[in-house]
């Protein structure tokens, strides 16, 4: 009966998949965050706000963590018996691992790898092993050579022991095939003890049979319900202001340091772009037209000065030029319309 139930469930799952992907039409409302009369939060204010918000169910979460902490000595035993430990479950496991480190690994050589850190690479992990642990100065041609060197040293010297703690083994930077291969080989050394945490739902997909047997995992479910503070702080969320695109504050900042005429030029371009915002095929303002308009407004007196001004804008990433199909240069401001509107309003206030 149970099997039949399961089959039915499986069938439902399949149907649900096709239901979800049946039509390419998207049935959601067209509202955007811009229309929401609310300022976008930046990283700092977000952090401050969250720090003040109380964490729900703190007592229960503490109980949970205490349960996990009681396993520490067992982990040590199992690590020494040749297994490696991987933690999964909801919630940040950073504090747990940190607790493990401070309570048990204080006196032994250990290496902490913050996998969520966006610029971490396998090479940096290997480097810290060769440089800090093995005291070897010198470079290697490839990570494979480096790995070979480490393997040799650890096999020669049986007194060497190293604990490696990896937060978020499944992070963007470490989930590649080659990195995982190297880490797996590293973890298969008998005197390197690896304890790692994973969060992504598809994390186990990165390991094939060979890697799994190198890793020799023991799985531990450690659901902590702790917020992922450090882990998500590097993730450019959709709702937080993105540093990559131009934000209003930086726009204002740059423009305030320019001459009056230069601001006028930018204003002109912005106004023109806003007028044409409903036209999806608007390619931008061509240079010739723009020059004409600027001359009429007495903002520039020659072709050359306008070009110089535009170069300055381009250096500050305020405008972008695009060559159209007819070979003419078109100018646009790579900022979304609402920010531009806000900018013009602010500008009007100032004047």
């Amino acid at each position, binding site marked *: 009966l149970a099997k039949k139930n399961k089959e039915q469930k499986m069938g439902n799952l399949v149907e649900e998949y096709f239901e979800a992907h049946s039509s390419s039409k998207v049935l959601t409302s067209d509202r955007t965050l811009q229309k929401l009369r609310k300022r976008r939060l930046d990283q700092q204010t977000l952090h401050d706000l*969250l720090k003040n918000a109380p964490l729900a169910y703190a007592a229960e979460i503490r109980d949970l963590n205490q349960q996990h902490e009681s396993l520490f000595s067992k982990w040590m035993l199992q690590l020494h018996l040749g297994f490696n430990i991987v933690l999964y479950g909801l919630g940040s496991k950073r504090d747990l691992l940190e607790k493990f480190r401070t309570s048990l690994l204080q006196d032994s050589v250990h290496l902490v790898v913050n996998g969520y850190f966006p610029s971490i690479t396998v090479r940096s992990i290997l480097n810290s092993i060769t440089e800090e642990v093995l005291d070897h100065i010198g470079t290697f041609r490839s990570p494979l050579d480096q790995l070979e060197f480490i393997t040799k040293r650890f096999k020669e010297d049986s007194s060497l022991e190293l604990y490696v703690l990896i937060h978020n083994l499944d992070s963007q930077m470490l989930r590649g095939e080659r990195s995982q291969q190297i880490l797996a080989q590293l973890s298969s050394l008998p005197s390197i003890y690896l304890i790692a945490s*994973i969060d992504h739902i598809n994390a186990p997909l990165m390991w094939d049979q060979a890697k799994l047997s190198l890793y020799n995992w023991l799985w531990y479910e450690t659901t902590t319900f702790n917020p992922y503070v450090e882990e998500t702080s590097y993730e450019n969320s959709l709702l937080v202001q993105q540093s990559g695109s131009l934000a209003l504050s930086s726009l204002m900042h740059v423009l305030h340091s320019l001459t009056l005429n230069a601001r006028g030029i930018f204003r002109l371009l912005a106004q023109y772009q806003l007028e044409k915002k409903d036209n999806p095929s608007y390619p931008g303002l061509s240079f010739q037209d723009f020059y004409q308009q600027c001359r009429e407004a007495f903002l520039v007196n020659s072709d050359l000065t306008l070009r110089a001004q535009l170069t300055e804008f381009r250096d500050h990433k305020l405008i972008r030029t695009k060559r159209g199909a007819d070979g003419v240069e078109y100018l646009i401001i790579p900022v979304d319309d609402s920010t531009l509107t806000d900018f013009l309003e602010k500008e009007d206030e100032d004047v």
Partner: protein
Amino acid sequence: MKFREIPTAALVLGVNVTDHDLTFRGLSDVLQDNITPYVALLEAKDCPGIKNLMQKLMGQLMKCDIDVDSLEDEDCVQVSQNKIRCSMPSLISWYDSVTKKTDSETPSKKRNSSSRHWQSPPVVVIFKDMESFTTKVLQDFIVISSQHIHELPLVLIFGIATSPMIIHRLLPHPVSSLLCIELFQSLSCKEHLSTIIDKLLLTSQFPFKLGEKVLQVLINIFLYHDFSVQNFIKGFQLCIVEHFYSQPLSVLCCHLVDIKKRVYSLSHDQCENIRRLPSFRRYVEKQDSGKQIELLTNDSFLKEETEKLLEDLHVYHENYVQILRCLHVFTSSLPKYPLGKQIRELHCACLENRVWETEEYESSLQLARMLNKTDLVTMLQQCVEILMSSSGKEFDRAVEKLKEFLTQFQNLEVAEASQERGVSVSPQKELQKKTDLYHLQKTLLELKESRRSKKLTKFEMLRFEVVDYIDSLVRRYLVPADERTLHEIMYFNAAAVLRGHLNAAPRTALHTALNSPHWYLKNQALRYDGGGISNKAPDICIVYKLHLECGRLINLVDWLEAFSTVVMAAEEPNADEASSDQVDDVIHARFIRAVSELELLGFIKPSKQKTDHVARLTWGGC
């Protein structure tokens, strides 16, 4: 062998890639001892290009040559591989120098085969995982080495995980025609499993035993997931670790000779532990009241009793294994194998519950009652052999009984031979005479009548007797382990723990935590049944539940609004509308945090398809 062909051995090894390491290590050792000192083992991950491959190959050949040589001549130059240019000519010149040297030196060397079989020993190159090599590298290597096959006698060995077809799929015809391929099969991994179970579990050598559930988990992982013997062994190791870590009485899990010493060194607490064992309590309940009191209060009496019980347990296990093998002899030849073909299935069935109460056992006995004589005799002989091999005296009687059966069968044979002639006119012969349909029917009916009322022959009587005897043996010795007293000491039974550690389901854990947080957070407020969204749950659970209701794309604004509605409903009673803007911001921030956590967990990802939308990466209710 044709001109320029490279002799090649293709080993079909099966999909359990994790076990191949051991196979190859064994193979290269054997080759090194018996045939040639020049064996190189290449793995795909070390050879992304032909250059790396040559480098690796030369490094291994020269190093392994130095290893073998180092005992004999100290002055063998430790050539660093980096200095030589890694190319075929340098490999050949190295090979020439090595073989020359061994030729010119004293021919009485025991190691080198150059004087024995070959003028020059072959160089063996093993490709460990043929499937994962890039075709370009393989092709190049084969083409290059086929050019030099005269100067450098290469032999290639391919380790193949899938099927020999892959050679032709990986190598185009011009390249594969350069090879002279001979195919070799390896043992299937199921046979390895049977060997392991036979040698590791079904012996009385090791005091540690696996319970039924645990064994089932291990076998299932093997048969349904990976076919990997190494993983099976890892699971077994984990069982041992878990057992000796978590069970305080596992000190008593030892060989028969040590039991006495260990039992008498038990402390009072440990004695209490024994008293707490469920199987021991059952045992106590069955004793009379005077003994009960003694057992529960007097430590030294308890120790004596424990020692006896543990010895019983050892004896039980020894007998169990022998009888199990005997029963297996019977059941493994029955049609359709009601109790399973392999001894492990029988073992599981016996451990699970009383095997003689199951339907399968019933039907297999029925089938056994229909066995013919020759089969029955050979089986009995096998049983006698098995029982004779056991060390205990327990089976003397059983062996005698079986032998008696055997002689009876022999006597029967003689008797039957003399009887044969008398009953030669069988009813079938009469049947052939009739042609009339009516008569035919009548005789058939008569035949049936007669058969029903026919008395059993001597053989059949004997057969019943044998089967009944086997049945009685089964009933006596194959009692499942968890009905024995103190079985907890020897048997590891925590299957759930094992499954959790070996075959975890991170996705299910996440789903449970997000869907029903009360499973983890023991708070009364979270106990909320029904499919709705509890507004008291942690933020991420609310956001997750809201996201479950969406299709493929999710509008962030709507999502945010739904979230704030739910959260506001929870806070309404105690919010005094102090600063709605402030509250709004906090909710907004919490929402951002929850959404970015979901993104980290891989449930959603940003989508460019529509502004301010995210794409959902899962479907349905999970």
